[in-house]
């Protein structure tokens, strides 16, 4: 994630600049929701929490001080809000323990952020799949259905679903081959982290 203008953005935000606010919002909104949803497993609640955060970010902007980075601040706030939420559910002991034990908050960028150009290219690539294949792929990746469930839903054999998913992956890989080095870069980054 680009952070070079983050300080400047933050200063503009403090002065009440709506463009800066919107830039921050558009950069982080979906990623923060995704992060909150991973903790809460509730999309609606996740969005609510992130929206609360941004309403507060605006109203308290003048008194805001961020020592580390804006990104860290936002993710940490969402995490705390989620923990509160979990507490509300009175299942804190069951879930919060795992989360709090993981005190150090590392945000792996490629878990939450996606390059704008890449996102566009992915959308294009998915759209270019033949209709049936695209439908099968989306049921698996968007709806989270198992192959068997997809087969039942579409009245196909599991074998067909398996084959179509393979072809979808192959075709997507072909369409996204320009990003090959980028993906390898992500992989090496992840591996080197494991060896740190």
């Amino acid at each position, binding site marked *: 994630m680009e952070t070079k203008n983050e300080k400047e953005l933050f200063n503009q935000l403090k002065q009440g600049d*709506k*463009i800066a606010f*919107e830039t921050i*919002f*558009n950069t982080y*909104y*979906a*990623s923060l*929701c*995704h992060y909150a949803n991973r903790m809460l497993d509730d*999309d609606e609640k996740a*969005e609510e929490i*992130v*929206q609360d955060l*941004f*309403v507060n970010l*605006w*109203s308290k902007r003048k008194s805001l001080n961020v020592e580390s980075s804006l990104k860290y601040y936002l993710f940490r706030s969402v995490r705390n809000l989620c923990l509160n939420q979990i507490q509300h559910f009175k299942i804190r002991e069951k879930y919060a323990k795992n989360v709090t034990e993981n005190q150090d908050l590392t945000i792996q960028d*490629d*878990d*939450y952020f*996606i390059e704008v150009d*890449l*996102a566009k290219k*992915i*959308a294009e690539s*998915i759209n270019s799949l033949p209709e049936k294949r695209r439908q099968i792929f*989306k049921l*698996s*990746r*968007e709806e989270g259905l*198992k*192959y068997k469930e997809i087969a039942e839903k579409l009245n196909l054999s599991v074998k067909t679903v*398996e*084959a179509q*998913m*393979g*072809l*979808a*992956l*192959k075709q*997507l*890989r*072909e369409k*996204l*081959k320009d*990003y*090959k080095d980028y*993906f*390898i870069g*992500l*992989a*090496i980054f*992840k*591996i080197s982290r*494991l*060896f740190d």
Partner: protein
Amino acid sequence: MGTNSNRSNEDWERLAKSLYEKPAGEHEPKDFSPENLATNSGKEEIYRMAKQIDLHLNLKKYDSHRALQKVYSRINKQTERSGSRIIFMRALKIAAVLLLAVLIGSSIYFIHEKNLQTVATAEVTVDDLGLSQIELADGTKVTLNRDSKINYPDEFGTDTREVSIVGEAFFEVAPNANKPFIIHAGEATIKVLGTSFSVNAYPENDKVEVIVETGKVKFSKLDNSPKTTNELILDPGEKGTYINTSKLLSKCMNDDPNFLAWKTHKLVFNKTSLKEVIKQLNKAYHVQIDTADPSLNKLLLNAHFERESLNFILEVISSTHGLKVVKKGEHYMLKKEA
């Protein structure tokens, strides 16, 4: 080590299955040793790609634009509460706020021009949107839209304050109960009676429109025929219309939240069709925007813009609907992204 090209369809099937069919958490590649990296990099790369595709689909679920509107409406509710006193104070200072826009056959205009002195010495400044602001002798402030003219005397007479206008303007009329403020707009006359209001007319329709914000406005016409309504009293939120061709006066509630956008660059779109959005943008930013394909006109937009650049607004629209903007001079064309 299978490169992409020599992987068979069965290989892809197996790969997809190992990526997508195993329970969550199990499909993380286990073999991370550097020796294996070389042989596994193809697989690893595909795994990363698949993960980024999943991430993309995950993030796409969240509608940032809609969410931003929600956040703004909550922020606005907060500020309204703290800002109401200021607005009230301001209302006391300004007796009348009115927007007037007229573009009509110029014959009438010239008749008035003879009766009114044209003076170039008043206080004229240019605001940050490039619009002229004029302060009249009585303290009334007028903001002129582009290609608009106002005629006013150096000093007002003893009984009335009279001006005439061609084009579009926003008036903040200084209070003076003893000297009514009268605006001649083609065949229509607008008289400020109470506190604040606005007037607006669209040239292409050959009509004069008056939109009242607060207070009362008397809207009348030149042609005094006994059979039709010759004057209307307009209350807040009401819009009076005078049609030049039929010479009829009528009123209704104003339903256009963006009637002042040319001055404020504040635009509110609430499930507004792209066709209407473009009409408003063309007017507010003095540009020519078109769609390449009539089917695009039906796309709906929810958005709230406050003093944004046109480029920013077009970017929001195009990213919302997967469009692209082709610019030629002052002319913009919205197209479906290929």
